[in-house]
């Protein structure tokens, strides 16, 4: 498919972006971090976003994760136009519809594994009782095979284990989309495989995943790869 072609919103699309732009003012210079990106992410897709440093992939991730807003174009999430929504609405979508997995895990060191996993439930739309939070947290840990480490602290875990806990945290709110920013960047090849196999399993269970990576091995797990350069999508490979 040509990257210039505007994608049609699919009925079951999680995200539909049209001609999305994000510019920053750096003194007198305007930086175009995203320059007319159009993209549809269907439900259940495993999307890899690849590109060199400064290509705009992180900006795209931040916008998909409702941590940043576009300066132009439109974006549609689950059929709702979310182009100019408020900070509070963005926070609510982050809490309830999006799961994040970071390169450096970003677990809070003073909290136990289970408390880290259930943290998003505290910020969810409805208050969840602690008992129910723990139950949901244990289920999420079971999905990533880390339930036996629930009472440990993050610094008692290996890198691969920490990333699996971080994935459990991303799953806890049953999100529509999981965004993973270089999730294997800090892992050795053995743990990289463990994490990627886990993602593959979760995709089979029906989650939608967008993953930013430099690593071709990781990108090859995905069923779609888009390559970015200078804020544009220059390649969309669905093979």
């Amino acid at each position, binding site marked *: 498919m040509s990257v210039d072609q505007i994608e049609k919103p699919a009925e079951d699309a999680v995200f539909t972006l049209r001609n999305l732009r994000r510019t920053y003012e750096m003194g007198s210079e305007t930086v175009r971090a995203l320059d007319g990106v159009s993209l549809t992410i269907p439900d259940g897709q495993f999307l890899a976003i690849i590109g060199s440093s400064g290509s705009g992939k992180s900006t795209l991730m*931040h916008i998909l*994760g409702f*941590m*940043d807003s576009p300066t132009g174009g439109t974006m549609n999430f689950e059929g709702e136009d979310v182009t100019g929504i408020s*900070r*509070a609405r963005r*926070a*609510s979508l*982050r*809490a*309830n519809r999006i799961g*994040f997995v*970071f390169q450096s895990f*970003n677990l*809070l060191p*003073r909290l136990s594994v289970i408390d880290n996993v259930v*943290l*998003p439930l*505290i*910020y*969810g739309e409805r*208050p969840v009782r602690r008992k129910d939070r723990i139950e949901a947290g244990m289920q999420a840990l079971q999905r990533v095979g880390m339930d036996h480490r629930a009472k440990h602290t993050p610094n008692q875990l290996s890198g691969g284990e920490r990333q699996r806990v971080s994935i459990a*945290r991303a799953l806890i*709110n049953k999100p529509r989309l999981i965004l993973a920013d270089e999730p294997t960047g800090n892992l050795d090849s053995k743990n990289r495989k463990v994490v990627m196999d886990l993602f593959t399993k979760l995709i089979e269970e029906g989650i939608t995943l967008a993953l930013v990576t430099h690593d071709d091995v990781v990108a090859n797990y995905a069923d779609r790869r888009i390559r970015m350069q200078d804020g544009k999508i220059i390649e969309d490979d669905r093979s």
Partner: protein
Amino acid sequence: MNIVGDFISGAANGFREVWANKLRSLLSMSGIILGVAALVAMIGVVQGMVSNLRVSFENSGGILRLNVETQDPPEEQRHIEGRSPGRTLNDAIALREGLTHAQFVGAEVEGGWSRFEARGHRRWALVRGVLPDNLNFDTRGLAEGRFVSELDVLYGSPVVVIGSEVRDRLFGDIDSPLGEVVRIQGGSYTVVGVMEESLSEAGGGVRSRFVDRQNFMPATTVLRRFREDQNIRELTVMAKDLPSLPDLIEQIENILMQTHRGIEDFYVSTRDEQLADLRRLERSFMFSLGGIAAISLLIGGIGIMNVMLASVSERIREIGVRKAIGARSYDVFLQFLSEAVVISVVGGILGLLLSVGLLAGLREIIPDGDRISGAPLVAMFWGFIFSSGIGLLSGIYPAIRAARLDPIDALRYE
């Protein structure tokens, strides 16, 4: 989630943070701990002092009591001021004979602190020379025996009415000290009476050791044996009632003008002024303490703000993570504000506990400190409220800084 629920959840997080950083939290709350402890302890001490003064005011006749004070004579009498004998026991005798509106006339001669010896025991205690009516200026009665009599005064008898503390120290091993002889400054004196303990309702039933170490002798005996001059320390008159006060003052002035041979080296002071002074003293103490407390709590608040700002800087990444997984700015604001409040509330509670310990120590150390309250509840309440308020105020700015952080920048922070 409602604001109360959010705050409770924030407070739980706050406790966890305080517990996880025990030393840092303790250091940050030290200002509040010391501020609250100092505030409550000082208020306790001042209240004790003022209470002592009030009780002593009431015990010594209240508003109906008039004092004859000395003063320099007016300019035109300066060259003949030597004609006046000054304030002497004769004044008291003349007033007793001449006044029609007085209930009692008392006089007191200072005998000073002296060594009392009896039955192999020793005790330093205070000697006061008095007239029989002085018993009426004291709310204490006699525990046993009698007070100084007219005849004792007339003859300058070597008798003493001892305080309960002196009785306990010197005669604790016998049933009654009446008729026993006490050696005081080389002289021998017969114990004729014992004063009651200084228990009073106004003092909450606590004993004043100072009052119980006072001993009474006839004024004439003290003048003869303990002093080289004829001056008396105090000349007091108790009015029958409030309406007769102006007439009584005029009578006193007329009589004393005769005994002082026309020299106006005295004046009659009413106790309205003393009562007003007492109230002014109390107010000024409270204002000074309020100022000191405000400054110390402000310093405590600055300490908390400093630590909270450091905490925000240390936890920028954590704030980023929390925001990325859905925390609103309001949630982050409340989290840091709750932590500041937890620090100040815990600091306030520790300060209150410390103040109770301080007050217990001060009761022992300060002379006549029995009236110091062990736990001045009103001061403790306000100390706690102020410390919590300070925590709230000092937490606002760091909490706003934390809440305003952009999640993307916060997550990139190394």
